[in-house]
């Protein structure tokens, strides 16, 4: 009962009704104590007789739905469907008929007055035909009197409770919340959100479908552009993308696009409504994909839909790349990743796990065995250390190792699962990105008494998603800003015990655009720690390159790309995602893969052409 029409009706009902003449601004209200109704009173003329036309909102129940209608009364004894000749203000006598407008139901002339809805003045049209059911408000105006519904919060696990388990932190929308939230969308004519999405999902389209209760259809619409909606709904940085440019965000809060995407995808999966779309006829082309992370999976989905045969090579024993080894269970349940990958398998994508391209097969060999094109999406999985004295002490480890042990190898279920993870009572996490937040929140769940994020700059410069920082704060993670480690101190058994740090101050912006941290002289201090997780960034995965010596790489070791679509120095080899850009996000990798897929398809189907 929150759509515009009902809201209008409920605003006009009762004693608070305010309707005005647009010319003399006199109120048109008339209270009838007998019926306890407030009527809108207009002067009407029909068949050269003058009289009154009274309107009052009312409700009908049709098919168990409440429909709004207007009761009409007149002392002109007019027949049903009879059209009055003129409508006038009872105070100033000016004709209210608007020549420009007409009834949107029966095309009769309309009289134009002004009503106040939620302290906003909107135009209201009165159809001149008796019995007309038109509510009197044009679709354009309907948007103006949108009920002010606040952005819906998705329910979350209690902060204290969730630090003791690995279950997903946020539960997602239930149907009612999703519909309510979807109703907030203004359905803009030029939706900025679509441009804000790296893969161009039809956001207003799927939000509208959710509003109308067509949840499965909403999921299918998303899947036309994004093969992994349940994942993106959870891990995309929406506050930097679609939701940042949402018109509502200017005055209020943006529509919760990410949560709605997640809702639609979860609904489709949980109700077993997932179907397989029709594939294009087979092209006979064979595509090899190196790496089964977000980029590889997106390209796989796109290419298989275009009719190509696709094989994905994954070096680990499970497909998903960073989605399975990096992002923790409590943020992205692995069952969801598996379900999304199963969907790709059902589309016809072949996935070969335990297959290291570069070792088991070189890229040349893939071409020799019949592949027509290769896509490299091996990501940024090489851990970066700080090269500080004492960094190889026991219980100092990379974020990658920690997260891989806990997520991929399920160390949180040790000893049911065989892989252990290091434990600490006083854990320091170095870095301020999403990975650092993931590590800190994982360490809390693994039983650490005190977890501190040590970051060189301040909260404002932290690259992590706002939601992740807030979640970490709620869960009791401490933050030590403007602090940088300079060495680690161990005990006689070579285990880390202390960390020497120096305080920082912010100077001029550096090449990253953020203010550069500068160490303060004589500000050194010691921090007691018995475990340190280094989460200061990642480099390109190295193992592929031994099998691809011809592949040109940048100074930092990433693959050199010669076109927007990720063509590399090797013919018929594309690359995309973190292996080209350096550490970024899931959705940017997917966007790059989409471009590569379109270009690859063009290139393969139109018989090549110049490579670069």
């Amino acid at each position, binding site marked *: 009962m929150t759509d515009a029409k009902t809201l209008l009706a409920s605003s006009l009902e009762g004693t608070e009704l305010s309707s005005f003449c647009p010319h003399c601004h006199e109120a048109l209200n008339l209270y009838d104590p007998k019926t306890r109704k407030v009527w809108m009173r207009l002067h009407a003329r029909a068949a050269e007789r003058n009289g009154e036309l009274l309107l009052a909102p009312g409700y009908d129940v049709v098919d168990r739905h409440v429909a709004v209608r207007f009761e009409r009364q007149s002392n002109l004894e007019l027949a049903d469907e009879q059209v009055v000749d003129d409508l006038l203000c009872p105070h100033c006598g000016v004709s209210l008929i608007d020549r420009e407008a007409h009834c949107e139901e029966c095309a009769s002339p309309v009289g134009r007055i002004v009503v106040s809805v939620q302290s906003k003045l909107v135009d209201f049209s009165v159809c001149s035909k008796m019995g007309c059911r038109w509510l009197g408000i044009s679709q354009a105006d309907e948007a103006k009197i949108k009920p002010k519904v606040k952005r819906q919060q998705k329910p979350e696990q209690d902060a204290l409770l969730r630090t003791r388990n690995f279950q997903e932190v946020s539960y997602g929308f239930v149907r009612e919340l999703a519909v309510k939230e979807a109703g907030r969308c203004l359905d803009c004519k030029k939706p900025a959100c679509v441009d804000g999405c790296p893969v161009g999902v039809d956001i207003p389209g799927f939000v509208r479908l959710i509003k109308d209760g067509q949840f499965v259809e909403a999921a299918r619409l998303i899947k036309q552009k994004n093969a992994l909606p349940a994942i993106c709904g959870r891990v995309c940085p929406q506050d930097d993308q679609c939701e940042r440019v949402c018109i509502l965000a200017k005055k209020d809060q943006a529509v919760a696009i990410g949560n709605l995407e997640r809702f639609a995808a979860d609904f489709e999966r949980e109700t077993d409504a997932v179907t397989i779309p029709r594939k294009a006829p087979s092209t006979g082309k064979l595509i090899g994909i190196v790496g089964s992370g977000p980029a590889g999976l997106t390209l796989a989905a796109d290419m298989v839909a275009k009719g190509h045969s696709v094989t994905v090579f994954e*070096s680990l024993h499970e497909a998903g790349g960073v989605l399975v080894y990096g992002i923790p269970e409590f943020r992205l349940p692995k069952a969801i990743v598996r379900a999304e990958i199963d969907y790709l398998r059902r589309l016809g994508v072949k996935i070969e796990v335990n297959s290291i391209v570069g070792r088991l097969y070189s890229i040349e060999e893939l071409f020799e065995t019949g592949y027509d094109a290769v896509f490299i999406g091996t990501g940024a999985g*090489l*851990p970066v*250390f700080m090269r500080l004295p004492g960094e190889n002490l026991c219980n100092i480890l990379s974020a990658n*190792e920690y997260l891989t042990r806990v997520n991929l190898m*399920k160390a949180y279920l040790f000893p049911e699962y065989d892989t252990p993870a290091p434990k600490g009572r006083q854990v320091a996490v170095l870095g301020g990105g999403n990975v650092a937040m993931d590590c800190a929140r994982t360490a809390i769940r693994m039983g650490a008494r005190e977890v501190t994020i040590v970051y060189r700059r301040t909260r404002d410069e932290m690259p992590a998603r706002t939601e992740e920082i807030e979640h970490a704060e709620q869960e009791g993670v401490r933050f030590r800003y403007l602090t940088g480690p300079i060495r680690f101190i161990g005990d006689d058994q070579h285990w880390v015990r202390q960390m020497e740090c120096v305080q920082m101050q912010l100077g001029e912006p550096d090449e990253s655009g953020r203010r550069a941290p500068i160490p303060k002289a004589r500000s050194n201090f010691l921090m007691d720690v018995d475990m340190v997780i280094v989460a200061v960034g990642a480099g390109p995965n190295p193992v592929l390159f031994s099998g691809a010596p011809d592949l040109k790489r940048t100074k930092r070791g990433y693959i050199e790309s010669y076109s927007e679509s990720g063509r590399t120095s090797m013919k018929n080899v594309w690359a995309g995602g973190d292996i080209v850009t350096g550490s970024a996000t899931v959705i940017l990798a997917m966007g790059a893969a989409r471009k590569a897929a379109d270009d690859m398809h063009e290139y393969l189907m139109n018989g090549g052409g110049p490579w670069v």
Partner: protein
Amino acid sequence: MHTIIDRRELTKGDMISLTIEAPAIARKIHPGQFVVLRVNETGERTPLTVAYKDDVHGTITIIFQVLGKTTAMLASLKIGEAIKDLVGPLGCDERFTKVGTVVGIGGGSGIAVLHHILQGSKEAGNTLIGIVGAREKALLILEDEMDALCERLLITTDDGSYGMHGLVTDALTQLVEEQVHVDQVIAVGPLVMMRAVCEMTKLYGIPTLVSLNPIMVDGTGMCGGCRVTVGGETRFACVDGPHFDGHQVDFDELMRRNTMYLRDERTSLLTSIKAK
């Protein structure tokens, strides 16, 4: 899934040899490279250096000593059963060149790895002398194979039950005293053994190659758990190694790093025994 084709107990219940079907890996693997395996769904990823490969039949052979839960599970597998995940080849492909006389020193299950590496070294045209050591006679493996590969084979046991009474370093001392010219030493075995060998060869100025076995998770350069200090620099054994110049390796650090999960390993083993 990779089926076990053959299983042998090289010493009673302790040192096991498994031949596993893995045609693609067998085609590509070189001496000294390793594989990472995971026995079952709940298993740990475990690196093991390959002892033999047979690219005609598409098999690889691993030889290991039963030490913890994973090796105990591996040891319990019968012919026809399978290992869930097997990935490789991993580690640098060490191409052997002709240097002259090479002394290969192996201890414990390291002898199996040494044997494979020496095969590569022999193919490059080197003359081989082998030194193999064990705690006692019953624990010595691959004696015949080593004997066939090397010009000369010296055997040591800690308790004197077979061969020389002493350590592999004593046999090396004997070679030095005999004034045998040695161009390179390749040592594979327990870290204490490799450290002792390196201390000695450093003194004599003999280049020494060691094969390291640090803790690792993925084996492809993604976790950094296997970092070792070599010549003051941090290197990843999985992608930069596992072979390094033994004179540059910080063995003390590596030995301590390898004890990081000792308690967890014991818990893991005890839980699995209790569950049975």
